[in-house]
């Protein structure tokens, strides 16, 4: 039994550490028998939000994540709309869709090529997807950097700047709509759509084809199996169906009911008194001396089951993607992501042409410009990485409680009260962790790139402590984890005293050891 630690886990958003317990007796390669994921950065945005003007939530929650700020913006503004009791005008609904759509495209392009692309490029023998270390490599990689920038340009026409745009208010948006804005957005969108359909979707098809030709498909297709439960809240309404989630472009889980969400904390450092509660009822109370706990991430569960979230979940729930493996895999998460970009791109063109310059984009709420004395609101939305929920409570014109449950909270969750692992931990189980370097690994698979990897000096890649971490890295990255917001509280080091909100703890450490 060996242990492989991956820290820092690069090419994701945020600070993630993964510990793998490896069973050396398995043939032909040792495999992972247990995995533990822990976030290693805590910022406490929810604590910062307390006592502020409710409208500030739009600006502050965006700063949770710089890759998908629009998702937090949309979720918080929906919660605010509900709290202020106002329905945005049609133009505003479309502009919010366009802003989120552009960001989803940018995030998916970034993930497909820059964050995860190099691994698929090596495994499926696609030199276009590798970083441009030689003139013959990386054509699509370089193009992707340019196209993701175009998506941000499109967004900033309506958002002002990106990341962290500036144009939402409860009751609508702030941008004065002119025909020239619509036209310059549409030009960029057409260019983006062409890239996505001609290059990105095409590349995703080539990955499958090449893997089949290389005889690696059978190994890869079962790699990173999830739980088979797919959660989505729904995203991208049309103005006429704004009130009915089931008619939105991306559909929620069939029969979705927000009240069935529970956060489990048996293996997280929180007081067990607050386990299995709805996010809006929970109090965050640290309990760092809990013997079995090993993470500061809570374990959200829906209807008592472990759910995976992300583009694959959305595509399956919307009936736009047919699963090859009933429980999904790392490859299918990537394919679904590519498929989703082309669906969003098509819809974007429609939304942009539906805009009506000259008509209003903002509607005053009842008490404008004052804020309501006390109110509650829920914002459920689809971030590029999966289902995102904001729960807001206003008391005496100030934020009294703000809870955020992010996609990575679901995907990277620790075990729950029944001892079931989260989707990412489960997907890592049984993953081969060869005891050879990348050259040896590729050679053992009979891969034609083996010699090339050696000549590029890449044979040592992902090989340390006697294990090759390539496959676990691919599986973790396929979830597109975004750690910045999934951690509510954190401490490191064994027995180091931690001051938290004026109290002193003596925690047992970020990760209990595997022995106990």
């Amino acid at each position, binding site marked *: 039994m060996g242990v492989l630690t991956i820290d820092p886990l690069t090419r994701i*958003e945020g600070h993630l550490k993964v510990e793998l317990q490896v069973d050396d007796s398995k043939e032909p390669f040792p495999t992972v028998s247990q995995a533990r994921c822990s976030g290693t950065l805590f910022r406490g945005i929810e604590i910062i939000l307390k006592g502020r003007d409710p409208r500030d939530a739009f600006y502050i929650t965006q*700063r949770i994540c710089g890759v998908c700020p629009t998702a937090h913006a949309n979720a918080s503004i929906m919660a605010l709309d509900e709290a202020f009791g106002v329905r945005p005008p049609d133009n505003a609904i479309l502009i919010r869709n366009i802003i989120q759509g552009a960001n989803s495209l940018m995030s998916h392009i970034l993930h497909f090529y820059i964050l995860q692309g190099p691994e698929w490029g090596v495994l499926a023998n696609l030199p276009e997807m590798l970083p441009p270390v030689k003139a013959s490599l990386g054509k699509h990689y370089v193009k992707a950097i340019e196209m993701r920038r175009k998506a941000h340009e499109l967004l900033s026409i309506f958002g002002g*700047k*990106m990341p962290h745009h500036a144009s939402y*208010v409860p009751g609508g948006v702030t*941008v004065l709509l002119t025909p020239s804005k619509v036209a310059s957005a549409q030009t960029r969108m057409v260019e983006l759509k062409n890239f996505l359909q001609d290059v990105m979707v095409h590349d995703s098809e080539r990955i499958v084809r090449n893997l089949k030709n290389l005889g690696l498909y059978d190994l890869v297709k079962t790699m990173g199996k999830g739980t088979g439960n797919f959660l989505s809240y729904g995203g991208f309404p049309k103005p006429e169906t704004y009130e009915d989630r089931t008619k939105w472009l991306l559909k929620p889980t069939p029969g979705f009911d927000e009240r069935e969400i529970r956060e489990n904390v048996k293996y997280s450092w929180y007081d067990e008194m607050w386990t299995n509660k709805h996010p809006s009822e929970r109090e965050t109370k640290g309990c760092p001396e809990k013997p079995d706990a090993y993470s500061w991430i809570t374990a959200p569960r829906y209807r008592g089951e472990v759910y995976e979230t992300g583009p694959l979940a959305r595509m399956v729930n919307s009936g736009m993607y047919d699963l090859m493996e009933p429980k999904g895999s790392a490859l299918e998460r990537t394919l679904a992501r590519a498929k989703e970009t082309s669906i969003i791109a098509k819809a974007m063109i429609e939304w942009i042409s539906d805009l009506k310059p000259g008509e209003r984009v903002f509607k005053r709420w009842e008490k404008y410009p004052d804020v309501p004395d006390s109110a509650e609101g829920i914002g459920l939305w689809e971030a590029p990485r999966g289902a995102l929920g904001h729960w807001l409570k206003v008391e005496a014109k100030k934020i009294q409680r703000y809870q955020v449950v992010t996609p990575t909270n679901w995907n990277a969750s620790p075990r729950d009260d029944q001892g079931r692992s989260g989707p990412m931990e489960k997907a890592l189980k049984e993953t081969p962790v060869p005891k050879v370097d990348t050259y040896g690994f590729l050679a053992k698979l009979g891969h034609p790139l083996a010699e090339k990897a050696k000549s590029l000096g890449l044979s040592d890649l992902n090989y340390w402590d006697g294990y090759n971490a390539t496959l676990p890295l691919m599986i973790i990255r396929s979830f597109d984890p975004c750690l910045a917001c999934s951690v509510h509280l954190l401490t490191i080091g064994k027995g180091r005293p931690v001051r938290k909100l004026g109290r002193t703890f003596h925690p047992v450490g970020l990760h209990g050891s595997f022995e106990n």
Partner: protein
Amino acid sequence: MNRRKSSLEFNGVDLCYIQGAGCTGCTVSFANCTDPNLVEVLQRYLEKLVPAWDIGLPHFYPTVMVTAGKQAMVSIDAWKRAKLRVLVIEGAVSGSEYCEVAGRPFEDIVAETAEYADFIIAYGTCAAYGGMVSATPNPTGSRGVMEFLKERHISKHVINLPGCPGHPEWLVLTLSAILKGKLPPLDRHGRPKDFFGKDLHENECPRRGYYEAEEFATDFGTKECLFKLGCRGPTTRADCPARLWNNTTFCVNAGGPCIGCTEPGFPDQMSPFYAEKELEPEVEPLLTRGFRYLSELPAKLLDKVRIWLSVFGIAVFIVRGVLKGLSRKIEK
């Protein structure tokens, strides 16, 4: 900045980009740069690591680097032996319990790399002044890089490039200045004067005319000045209206009031963002004011001498003319 180097000796800079308590937004923003774009920056500006490769990748940059885990951390050691070491820090430095990289507190990593760096750039408001993470009640004890280095008694200059996120061109142009062996002149908050010397109004905000005419918007989605809706443009020093974001626009153009994200007081001084708020004029500390007075004194004196000399000259001219006229009259 203890060692000044000539640019001619090197092909480029050696970049180590570390991320603390932040949101990766500054990285995403850096990737938005154009003319040169990110790939060109990497090719032109960064030291080539492997001679056979056509591109220089940063030594350490978690979001884009090829390696992970232990291998990634080895890259930092390689950077320490490089020639022109530039350290870019994104995100605030939070208390040692709250941010960890490779099993070590982020604080220690900053202190260690800062010792080796020839130039330190704090990119984004979090790294420069603490930013959003250090907002009241500052649950993680976060602060900016400058403040942290002072705490640890590490005397190094920091170039602050605030903004939430930082503008990509601010970083690229600063890297260019470093390549030329020049330090951009900084204001008293450590920001390059070229980018942060003037406020939004002095940089020709397109809605300034409405401000002068006192036509203020009362609803969102209109074309008038946003001052009464909470715009902090008159007191925020940044060149956004002239430089533009994402090549297209900036917050006020999209009807979003400026929230003052490049100022040291962001976000607490600016919140609540949608309320009109007269910011108190900045009060300069006495000592720096004294220094500035003394340093500006010779120029001021010279100006005075010039004025008095010209007054004297004119007076002489008039008096002479008058005298001449008088003498002519007397002669007659």
